[in-house]
C-alpha cells in the first residue's frame, strides 16, 4: 500500500515516511571475558502526517497498514498551529563508503585481545579493563508527499575503553572513547596514542593534586572546547529550547569577543565527525549554522516547523534516534572555530592557571548554566605545565564564559560522541581549538 497517498486521501496536507534498518554488532572484552554482547538487526517504519495543521505519528516494526495510517491521522491532536516549510521534489542517494576495511569477527577478536593485553600491562596497578567495540550499519530511507525520496547509508563504528587501577584503598579510573564513519576503528585511530593517554590519566589520578575550589584562568583543550560548544552553546541554540531560553532574546546581540565563532555543520572531513547529516530525518538538506558569528548571536538550529516559525532557512537539524521516536531538533558536528594564537604561546603567557584536557561528559540547562567533569588536567605555573590534577568538575554560565574568552588557537580537533535529549540519543561530534578563558569556576576534587 502507498501509505503517503492513503494519508493524503484521508485528508493529510503533508506526510512523510521514514524507514530505518540498523545492523549492529557489539563486542565486550574485559580482563577475563571476551563476548559478543549485541548482534542483530533493528528494523521499522515511521509515518508522520500533517492533518488539520497538527502532527500525527505512528511507528511499527511491521509493514505499515491501513490501520497505521488511520492511527497517524487519529494522533494529530494539537491546536492546529503547525505550519512548516515545504520543499521541492528531489531524489538522491548518499552512500558513505568506509576507507578502512572491516575485518571478520574473528580478526576483530584477535585485535581486541591484543589491545586488552596491552591495557592490562599499562601499569601494575591495573585491576580491570572494559573494551567495547561496536559497529552499526545504518540504512535510511525517506519519502514525502512532496515527492522527495532520499536514501542514505553509512557505518558508524567505535571503541570505548575504561581502565581501573587500585593501590591499597585508592581507586583510579581512566576512559577513552571515539567513533568514526571511516571504517575499522582499530585502524582509523592511533592505538599507541590511546594507550599513552590512558596511562597518563590513570597515573595522574594517583599523583594528582586537588585544586582549591574557585575561579581560575583556564586553557581549555580541543576536547573540552568541543564539549563546551555542544553543551553550553549548541543546546541553547536548538530552536525548541532557545525560544524558552536565554539565547533567543539575545539574537543579533554581541555576547562574546569577535574572535568567537561557533558552528554546527552537517559534515566534516575529520575522522571523528560522526554527526554527518547530509539530509536530516525530515529530508532537509543540511547546511552550516553559524550560531555565534564574530561574537554575535546569529541563528538557531531548526526543523521544518521552527524554520517557518523563526523565518530562517531550513538547516537540516531534525533528527530522530530511530523509527520508534519522533523528530527533535538536534546538533550534528558542533565546533568552536579556530583563531590565530598558538597553543605554546598561550601556555607561555599564563602565569597561574589550569590546563583542562579531557572531559568526562557534561550537562547544560536553558538558563545557560553548564557543568562538565574533567578527567585530565594540569596546573599551569609561570608559563609552564606543572602538576597533574585529580578529576575535577567545572561549571559556569555560558554567556559569562564566552565574554571571558581571551585567546583561541589555530588548530582544531574533533571528538565523536552521543548526545541525549528527551530520551533520544543521536551520534554527534564536537570540536574546537585551545581556548583561553578567564574566571572559570572549578569545583574541586571528585576523584
Amino acid at each position, binding site marked *: 500500500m502507498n501509505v503517503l497517498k492513503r494519508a493524503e486521501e484521508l485528508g493529510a496536507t503533508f506526510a512523510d515516511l521514514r524507514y530505518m534498518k540498523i545492523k549492529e554488532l557489539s563486542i565486550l572484552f574485559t580482563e577475563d571475558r571476551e563476548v559478543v554482547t*549485541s548482534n542483530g538487526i533493528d528494523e521499522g517504519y515511521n509515518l508522520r502526517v500533517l492533518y488539520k495543521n497538527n502532527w500525527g505519528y505512528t511507528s511499527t*516494526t511491521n509493514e505499515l497498514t491501513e490501520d497505521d495510517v488511520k492511527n497517524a491521522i487519529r*494522533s494529530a491532536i494539537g491546536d492546529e*498551529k503547525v505550519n512548516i516549510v515545504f520543499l521541492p521534489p528531489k531524489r538522491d542517494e548518499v552512500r558513505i563508503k568506509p576507507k578502512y576495511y572491516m575485518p571478520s569477527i*574473528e580478526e576483530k577478536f584477535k585485535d581486541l585481545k591484543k589491545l586488552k593485553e596491552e591495557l592490562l600491562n599499562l601499569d601494575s596497578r591495573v585491576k580491570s579493563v572494559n573494551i567495547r567495540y561496536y559497529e552499526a550499519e545504518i540504512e535510511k530511507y525517506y519519502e514525502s508527499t512532496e515527492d522527495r525520496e532520499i536514501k542514505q547509508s553509512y557505518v558508524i563504528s567505535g571503541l570505548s575503553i575504561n581502565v581501573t587501577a587500585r593501590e591499597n584503598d585508592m581507586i583510579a579510573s581512566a576512559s577513552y572513547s571515539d567513533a568514526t564513519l571511516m571504517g575499522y576503528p582499530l585502524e582509523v585511530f592511533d592505538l599507541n596514542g590511546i594507550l599513552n593517554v590512558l596511562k597518563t590519566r590513570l597515573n595522574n589520578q594517583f599523583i594528582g593534586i586537588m585544586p582549591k*575550589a574557585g575561579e581560575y584562568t583556564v586553557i581549555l583543550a580541543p576536547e573540552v572546547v568541543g564539549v563546551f560548544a555542544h553543551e553550553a552553546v549548541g543546546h541553547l541554540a536548538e530552536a525548541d529550547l532557545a525560544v*524558552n531560553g536565554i539565547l533567543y532574546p539575545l539574537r543579533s546581540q554581541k555576547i562574546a569577543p569577535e574572535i568567537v565563532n561557533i558552528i554546527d555543520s552537517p559534515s566534516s572531513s575529520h575522522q571523528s565527525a560522526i554527526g554527518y547529516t547530509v539530509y536530516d530525518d525530515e529530508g532537509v538538506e543540511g547546511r552550516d549554522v553559524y550560531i555565534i558569528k564574530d561574537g554575535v548571536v546569529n541563528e538557531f538550529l531548526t526543523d521544518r516547523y521552527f524554520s517557518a516559525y523563526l523565518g530562517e532557512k531550513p538547516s537540516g537539524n531534525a533528527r530522530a534516534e530511530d523509527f520508534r521516536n519522533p523528530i527533535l531538533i538536534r546538533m550534528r558536528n558542533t565546533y568552536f572555530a579556530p583563531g590565530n594564537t598558538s597553543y605554546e604561546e598561550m601556555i607561555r603567557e599564563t602565569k597561574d592557571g589550569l590546563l583542562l584536557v579531557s572531559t568526562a561528559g557534561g*550537562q547544560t540547562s*536553558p538558563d545557560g548554566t553548564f557543568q562538565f567533569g574533567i578527567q585530565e588536567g594540569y596546573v599551569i605555573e609561570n608559563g609552564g605545565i606543572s602538576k597533574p590534577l585529580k578529576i575535577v*568538575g567545572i561549571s559556569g554560565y555560558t554567556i559569562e564564559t564566552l565574554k571571558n574568552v581571551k585567546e583561541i588557537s589555530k588548530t582544531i580537533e574533533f571528538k565523536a560522541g552521543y548526545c541525549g535529549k528527551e530520551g533520544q540519543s543521536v551520534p554527534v561530534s564536537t570540536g574546537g581549538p585551545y581556548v583561553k578563558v578567564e574566571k572559570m569556576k572549578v569545583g574541586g576534587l571528585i576523584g
Partner: protein
Amino acid sequence: MVDEYAIINKAKSLGYQAEVYSIKLKQVQIKGGDQKHAFFLSDSGYGVRVIKDGKMGLAYSTRLDEKLLDLAIESLKPSKEDEFNVIPSRENVEKLPLKYFDINDAFDKLSEILNSVEEIRNIANITSDYYEAINSIIKVVNTDGIDVEEERSLVNVSLSFVFKRDNFVSPEIYESISSRDFNNLDIKGLLERVKEKAEIFKDYKSVGKKFNEVILTPKAISTLLSPLLSFAVSLENGYRNRSPLMEGEYIKEGLVIIDNPRIPYAPYSRSFDGEGLPSKVVKIIDTSFVKYLSNTYWSLRAGKENTHSSVRSYATLPVISTSLVEIDVNEKAEEDTVVIDEVQGVHTSNFATGQFSVTAPVAWYKGVAVKNLTLTGSLKCMLKGIIGSVGNKKEIYGNVYTYPLKIKGINAA
C-alpha cells in the same frame, strides 16, 4: 511458523543451551507544546542467547525467523570459553498483577491528564511535556525449563519547565511521575510540585555560605545517590574491584536499603528478572553492607547467592541492575538546611570510587531558590552521613522509594 519454542527445540537438537527473550509492546505517547501530537508505537523484538562448551553467543531481531539462531551460533564461535556461562534452570515464579489498564483505553486517559496540566501553563513555561502509556508482554523461554510470560502496563508523565520574568530565566526543572496503574498516578501532587517551585523561584540568589549538611529530596536521591549506588552494589563491579563498597562494611546504624521489585504498582516491578528467574526482595544494606546484587553469571563466578537482578533488552545480554531502591532510616531530622532537588552532571562522576562533583540547579534555602551551588562528595560519605529522614512522606520517585534524607559529609558551596 517460527516461534520461540521452534528456536529452542532446534538449538537443543544441535546440542546448545539456548534462551529466547522477547518483548512485544504497544505504546501511546502524547507530546504537548508547540508541535503537540500523539504517537502510536507497535514494537517487538527477540533476543536469542546460546551457550555450548562455555562459549556464549547472542543475536536479536525485530522479526523472529530461523536465521536468528544461526546468527547467535555464529557470534558464539569467536567468544572465549568460560565455565560460568550457563543458562539458568527453572524456578517457581510467583506472579504479581502488573497489568492495570488496556492500551486501547490509554489515549483518552492521557488526554485527560494533559488537559489537567493546562492549569499550570500560566505559571510555568513548559519546555517539554510527555504523557505515555505502555502495554508490554515479556517472555523468557529456555532449554532448561524456564517458560515465563507476563503482561505489564506503565504510565509516565514528565514535564520540563522554566520560569521566565523580564530577562530572568530559571534553570530548567524536571518533574515526573510513573506507575503501572493510572489510579496510582498522583497528578495533583505533580502539579503541586510545579506550583511550589514557582514560589521558590520568585527569588533566586547566591547565599554566600557553605553547607556541610544538605537535604536530598526523593528526586535528588533518584538522580544522584541511586545511580552511584546501583553501580556500587553490582556483584560484577564488586568482584572486579570497581566498587567503593565491600561486603560486611559498616555503613550507618539503623539504615536499611532494599532492592524491591515486588511492589506491584511501582514502575520497576517485575515477577521475574531478565533471565526468567523469580524476583526477590533483597536487603542490600542493614546497618552494614549486606550483599551485592547478582545474576546467574556473576553469582557463579563469585560463588555468591543469585539475587535474580538481571535486567536486559532483547538486544543485549543480561546485566545486573537495581529495580526499586527502598530506603529507610530509623531517625528523624529537621528541615533546617539547604534542600537539593535536582543535580546536574551525575554522569561525570567517578563511579568506581563513587566520588562526584555536580551542580545543583534546583535547590532552596529557607524557601528561596539558591544559585551557583556545587556539591562534592562520595557515595560512601552520603550513605555514612545520613542523619535521618525528613517529614512524613515516603514516595516513589524514579527508581527510589524514600523520604527526603538529611545528610552530612557532602560539601555544598
